[in-house]
């Protein structure tokens, strides 16, 4: 049996010939990446507006008639689910994964372009189904993004009829989309790397995306199984998760189900999901830091292992989300221990990022500012995670604003910081133009300080015992007036923070036409995606011949080399060396 290597596949196979084939039903990974990104950013903006509504109610209770207890819960549910699944997962893996994988491994496209195209369209349908729930009787589900039964499907919970069905259907479609994409990402990285690109020469971005994709492929089935079983409980009257219970005075037909089983299934997906989002961000920020500090990443091999170990361990910590669920206490001890263990490789990464910056030739441009901002916010969110990972500290803090502050810092703000760093870093490659640096820096400072203004006070509210997910605090005696004042201030800061994002959107659109031309490799980066013959890369990426890789992705400021950086495809013969006496002169001087 003869088989055709990927490298020799005629890439004209799916060469676009019409507008529709080029921009709509496109099989080009770069177009698909942009499609993923646009849909994700759009739905992310929807979720952002929903959070504004929630903040308006919390800061200024009962001022806005369109926000009632039901709609508040619906806004909260949709905000959480969209941000975690439909924005972050889709943008990091569907957007950046699609764009960067083939370019960074030095191939022409994904291994299965048609499947890749199906993936983005399934994702689009899942978003449509989810948004359709705003227009069905009863509106979207208000069960909270964790969708815990039995309340999710019982009368009294908003959207218990149509909203929850659409949510479950949308999740199932999303998982199908993710599986089609994820299979492509993993197979392309393992099978289509160009000559010389060993696994240990890959940029950390690829390691992050690869590990996260593998995790997603193994974790999303838990969500699929729980969604299918819950749908059967709702539609067919089965009792997978529904115990015998009385609702609104009526004894229901359910019996023998276990709500706790759903929680285990949900968090078996839910905790790895945190790292499905975080690991690509870890990888991308490593590359941004190294490039703009003109230094090789500190402890590359250690960083790779940390990514892989975090990925593995993340499947063993799920029940730290369930300390107050009434589960066996011995479980609590086990999961607290594994949670503390996972902090070790994570802390190691933070040290290595910091040591990469140490004595680097740091360029404080917008990608670098956001990358440094990530290190700050991630340390902050990580430390509060250590609080909540311990059973004895978690119990009094469970379901307070401390939890909201923690997960927004670690999963929201820090990941968004990387997303912005990545967009500012790779925008010139995608569009051929640089973004306006003044607007970018303004965007950074207002976002960074704004995020702290919003989420830092929430820790304090949590210590006071302010509960999360409550529509109104009412005349709660244990809450001082200062807590209400603080809530109003947080709302004002949050609204300002949202408005500031207009600067970013304007910059993205304005720079498409008016930004300075980026030229070839404007940052002086070593990795392959910057070494394409055309900028932006043309269809097929590499012209007639695929690149050949001669070195790893971090040859910045190499001792003895004249060049500031050595691209991965530069052979040793092309490296200009300093004269030996210059070398020793430099050494004696230092």
């Amino acid at each position: 049996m003869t088989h055709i290597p990927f490298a020799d596949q005629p890439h004209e196979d799916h060469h676009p010939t019409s507008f529709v084939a080029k921009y709509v039903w496109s099989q080009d990974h770069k177009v698909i990446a942009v499609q993923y990104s646009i849909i994700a950013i759009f739905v992310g903006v929807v979720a952002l507006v929903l959070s504004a509504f929630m903040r308006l109610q919390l800061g200024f209770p009962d001022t806005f008639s369109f926000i009632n207890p039901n709609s508040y819960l619906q806004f909260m549910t949709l905000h959480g689910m969209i941000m975690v699944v439909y924005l972050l997962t889709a943008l990091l893996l569907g957007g950046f994964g699609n764009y960067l994988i083939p370019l960074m491994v030095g191939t022409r496209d994904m291994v299965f372009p048609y499947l890749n195209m199906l993936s983005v369209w399934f994702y689009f349908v899942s978003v449509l189904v989810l948004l359709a729930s705003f227009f069905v009787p009863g509106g979207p589900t208000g069960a909270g993004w964790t969708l815990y039964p039995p309340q999710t499907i019982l009368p009294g919970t908003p959207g218990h009829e149509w909203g929850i069905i659409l949510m479950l259907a949308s999740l199932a479609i999303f998982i199908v989309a993710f599986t089609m994409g994820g299979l492509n990402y993993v197979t392309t990285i393992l099978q289509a790397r160009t000559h010389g690109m060993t696994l240990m020469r890959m940029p950390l971005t690829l390691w992050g995306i690869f590990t996260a994709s593998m995790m997603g492929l193994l974790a999303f089935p838990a969500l699929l199984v729980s969604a299918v079983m819950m749908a059967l409980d709702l539609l067919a009257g089965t009792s997978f998760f529904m115990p015998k219970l009385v609702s609104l005075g009526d004894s229901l037909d359910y019996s023998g189900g276990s709500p706790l089983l759903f929680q285990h299934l949900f968090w078996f997906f839910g905790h790895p999901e945190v790292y499905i989002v975080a690991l690509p961000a870890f990888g991308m920020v490593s590359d941004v830091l190294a490039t703009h500090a003109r230094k090789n990443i500190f402890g590359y091999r250690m960083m790779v292992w940390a990514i892989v170990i975090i990925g593995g361990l993340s499947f063993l910590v799920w029940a730290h989300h369930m300390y107050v669920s009434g589960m066996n206490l011995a479980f609590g001890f086990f999961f607290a221990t594994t949670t503390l263990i996972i902090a070790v490789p994570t802390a190691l990464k933070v040290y290595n990022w910091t040591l990469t910056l140490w004595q680097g030739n740091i360029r404080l441009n917008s990608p670098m500012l956001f990358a440094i901002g990530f290190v700050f916010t991630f340390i902050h969110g990580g430390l509060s995670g250590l609080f909540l990972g311990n059973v004895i500290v978690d119990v009094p803090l469970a379901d307070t604003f401390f939890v909201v502050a923690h997960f927004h810092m670690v999963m929201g703000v820090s990941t968004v910081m990387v997303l912005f760093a990545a967009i500012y870093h790779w925008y010139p490659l995608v569009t051929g133009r640089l973004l306006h640096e003044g607007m970018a820096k303004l965007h950074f400072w207002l976002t960074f300080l704004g995020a702290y203004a919003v989420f830092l006070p929430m820790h304090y509210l949590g210590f006071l015992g302010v509960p999360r997910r409550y529509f109104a605090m009412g005349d709660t005696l244990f809450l001082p007036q200062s807590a209400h004042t603080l809530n109003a201030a947080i709302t004002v800061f949050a609204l300002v923070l949202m408005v500031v994002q207009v600067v970013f959107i304007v910059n993205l659109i304005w720079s498409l036409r008016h930004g300075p031309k980026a030229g070839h490799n404007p940052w002086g980066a070593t990795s392959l995606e910057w070494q394409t013959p055309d900028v932006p890369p043309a269809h097929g990426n590499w012209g007639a011949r695929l690149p050949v890789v001669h070195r790893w992705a971090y040859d910045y400021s190499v001792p003895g080399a004249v060049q500031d950086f050595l691209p991965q495809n530069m052979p040793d013969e092309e490296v200009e060396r300093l004269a030996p006496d210059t070398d020793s002169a430099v050494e004696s001087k230092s």
Partner: protein
Amino acid sequence: MNPFRKIMEKPWDPSAEESAMALAIGPGTQYAGQRLMLHIFLVIVSVVFLLMFATFITHSQFPGFQPLAGEPWSPFANTTALWLNTLWLALSSLAMHVALIRLRHDAATQALWAMLLAAFLAAAFVLAQFSLWRTVSGMGYALHGNPANSYFYLLTAVHALHLLGGLFVLVRAIWLLWRGAETARMQTSLSLSTTYWHYLLVLWALVFFLLTRSPETYRAIAVFCGLG
């Protein structure tokens, strides 16, 4: 290069032996990519079933769980129908294997007949499973009656859906071979389909095993897995 040396590579050192050997490593073949994708997909399907099995065993330890086997009046006290269904699937798997061997010997017509037989037997299995549903339902074991019933319908339905997906691919392959597609290309397709068919047979055997155990066996499995 063995896996240990792969992960111990020092990519920053251009003089290292691994760096010199790296150029020898290039892109894989289309077939290798398809095979890898199928294997990862099978791992995903295994995770789906493993999770359902785990929740099944957990449920089996709750009060009120009434297994479908173990008592003389239980629907699976007599497993003849299940064995018969298993026979259809096993023969289908065998036919797929024969088809692959014949195609490797360039006997396209014989391969085509074997593939047709495999598709027919697989369809027979799905119909027989549906008939089993009707029988069990007719005995008063409805989908919503007890979690044990619900798992029976759920597990068999998800398994049948995977088989129907495979049938779709197989029918397409039969059509292509019928139209005289290149034998080498069809070998690739049939080789992957055969792996999928064998996998579904093993999966069915596990479902069969799980559905027909007694409460004591469920208890033992639960204790062994730490779920009891």
